[in-house]
């Protein structure tokens, strides 16, 4: 009897962790979808998230306020977006190179600031508002449902915000006039331009908004890891790159990005939780725990590769990729 309850708890914990450790992917993916819908391929997700993470965390701690933390993650990541927009829209720089630069720059800045603080790096436990702000919020009644209550309705505020942003972005793209114009720019900027859509303004706004959303994701990761600045890996630790692949997996739909996040999250969680999860497995699945942990670590990236290959084999007609993504627009081009 006891064993069964333990098994149920383990499974619940596993599902809970899928959400808690991977919602960052949703932020990254939705931010990148909004960016790509404007015809801009911003490969700087990783760096933008890292910048949002470090500045959001530090400012949040210094002021002991969640809201200011979120605000600064938005501002600092938004500035990365502004930089990307200025370079690619105004100066017409190559988008791929600019994005990669921002990734390198962002992660570099993250370590520069974090390591630079050394022992002065604020510990999250010292700041009540932050550590409490990252605690779960129990939705009345719904959180009492077994399993689902814990997995879905007992998450921290930024999980709910992330899902809300994804749904809002989906509605925005599909049912609003600015959303229609944005999609038009991503498909055929010259056509949108001839209809009087302000391409430069739209690109700037959406690149910045997209980056800001990524930034919240970075900040979220800082909170989840409880601000422990140790070791050599960044808080965002490759999530930014997976988010770029997830955009393709979600076929440029913020709603599908939620599903994609859960699926990728599943594989991602296997790597860290496989040991304990195996306890919950019935006997005939016991062999799963014998698979080396390295395999589970590689799994998310392996899945990413498979998804990319499968996607590239699909015919253009079914694809939702904005046709003009990655191509700079210059009105007087001949």
């Amino acid at each position, binding site marked *: 009897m006891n064993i069964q309850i333990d098994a149920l708890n383990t499974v619940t914990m596993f599902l809970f962790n899928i959400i808690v450790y991977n919602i960052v992917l949703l932020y990254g993916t939705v931010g990148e979808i909004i960016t790509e819908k404007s015809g801009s391929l911003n490969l700087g997700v990783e760096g933008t998230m890292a910048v949002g993470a470090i500045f959001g965390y530090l400012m949040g701690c210094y002021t002991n306020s969640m809201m200011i933390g979120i605000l600064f993650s938005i501002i600092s990541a938004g500035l990365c977006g502004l930089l990307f927009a200025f370079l690619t829209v105004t100066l017409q720089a190559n988008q791929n190179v600019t994005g990669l630069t921002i990734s390198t720059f962002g992660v570099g800045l993250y370590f520069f600031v974090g390591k630079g603080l050394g022992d002065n790096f604020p510990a999250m436990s010292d700041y009540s508002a932050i550590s409490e702000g990252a605690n779960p919020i129990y939705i009345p009644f719904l959180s009492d449902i077994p399993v689902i209550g814990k997995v879905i309705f007992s998450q921290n505020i930024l999980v709910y915000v992330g899902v809300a942003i994804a749904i809002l972005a989906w509605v925005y793209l599909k*049912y*609003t*006039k*600015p959303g*229609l*114009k944005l*999609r*038009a720019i991503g*498909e*055929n900027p*010259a*056509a*949108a*331009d*001839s*209809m*009087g*859509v*302000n391409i430069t303004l739209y690109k700037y706004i959406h690149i910045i908004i997209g980056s800001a959303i990524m930034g919240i994701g970075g900040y979220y990761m800082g909170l989840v890891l409880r601000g422990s600045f140790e070791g050599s890996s960044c808080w965002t630790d490759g999530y930014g790159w997976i988010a770029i692949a997830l955009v393709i997996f979600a076929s440029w739909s913020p709603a599908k990005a939620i599903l994609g996040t859960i699926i990728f999250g599943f594989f991602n969680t296997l790597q860290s939780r496989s040991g304990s999860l195996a306890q919950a497995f019935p006997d005939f699945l016991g062999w799963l725990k014998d698979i080396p942990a390295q395999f589970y670590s590689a799994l998310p990236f392996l899945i990413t590769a498979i998804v990319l290959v499968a996607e590239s084999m699909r*015919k253009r*007609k079914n694809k939702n990729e904005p*046709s003009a993504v990655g191509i700079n627009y210059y*009105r*007087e081009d*001949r």
Partner: protein
Amino acid sequence: MAEYAIELRNITKTFGSVIANKNITLKVKPGEILALLGENGSGKTTLMNVLSGIYKPDGGQIFVNGKEVSITSPEESKKLGIGMVHQHFKLIDVFSAADNICLGDNSGKFFLSKNRYKKIDDFAKKLGFEIDSRKIVMNMAVSEKQTLEIIKVLYYGAKIIILDEPTAVLTVQETSRLFDILRKMKNEGHSIVIITHKLNEVMEISDRVTVLRKGEYIDTVTTSETNNQKLTELMVGRKINLNIERPVTEKQPPLLEIRNLTVKDDEGNTAINDLSFYIRSGEILGVAGIAGCGQKELCEAIAGLRPIVCGKLIHKGESIAGLSPKKIIEKGIAMSFIPEDRLGMGLSPSLSITDNMLLKNYTQASSKFNPFINRKKGRSDAETVIKDLSIDTPSTETPVRKLSGGNVQKVLVGREIKAGPNVIVTAYPVRGLDINSSYAIYNILNKQKKDGVGILYVGEDLDVMLELCDKIMVLCRGKMMGVVNSCNTTKEMLGLMMTGTENLTAKDGKTPGIAADSNIKEA
């Protein structure tokens, strides 16, 4: 009311060191159709792009209804009641017709209205257009897309409508329907500017003609007081013979025979369906059809670039089906395909003329075991082609993309001919070329024909094909509608065959496309 709906005074527009428009003056009266005529690169499209706010002029004034205006964006042009139907449609392929129109809606509402489809259907019906506002542009035929463009322009209340080469992609019947629409709009008081270089159309539709040449304004004449010959002289700047020669050659045995050919397109749909035809030496066989009816796939199949599903390709009695493109080139079959963007197939835009020459004959230009290419040979080839076809280029080492469209096409055609082929497959060799360059290409082809080369000519301009080709094969959705002798057919007949209304293969008992003196022995 002002005397002119639009008045452009001394418009100048430069791109770097290139002067596209130099002090151009243009006046359009209310309720008239003005044709803007000129060769390629004469600045017609540039001028109209200035008017529609896409290009910012470097100098000059624009007056709309007598008031001076400054147009700095397409949005301002739209507000002034100017609408342009671009040559390459400015439509979003994955959007519905209605969404393409809603794109320009700048009223305050945040959400898209649900009844936008009905609103646009009603609007179109009121004007007498047939359109399904829910249809996705990607699934539309070319003429539907054009109708949508016109509705789009009218929807935002344009009084001045500019059409850039609207008939280039239409069949004869579609063109006459478009002209009916234009006349109707004119009678309702719209001013229309139509850009074209087809003289017949200018004579048919316009009230006045403004002629540009090399970026400069030449003259404006009243259509009823002029004729084709006079317009050509204004356009080219000298007298030119408008007749295309069709040399008579002796009847030769079939050179290339295609039997029951079936080919699929990139999407896996049948592009060419059970097609049989043949080309004799010293003969030009025209291929007519609406864009996308399998011409491209046919050319690629012959050149060995596209696998065939079934059927026979017999060249001088030998099968070439399944051979590599290189083997097919060695057999003397040359292909020059000019895609819509001109540079897409056959030439490498950033390479020099010499390098592009070498692309085709690097194997012959050096010995088999020599790993180095023979640049000297390439350069002398380039020099010959430049001289023979009078290509206008600073040097043999100029990157091809820096040449004007006509010269690019001459390089491509010239290279194919240089190899001394016995079959030339050429698709749209004069696409977008002006009269001078077009005639140069026709002459080259005719010379090859006299030398006994068999030519497959895929074209768009039926007038030209009727004059140049010996026979014309008409395709409709990958099926043959018949082979007609150009001496005894009409443009209208070809138009009907292209749309599949008329099918000559079903009429007379014998199957066309199979030579009586065929090399293929029936098993």
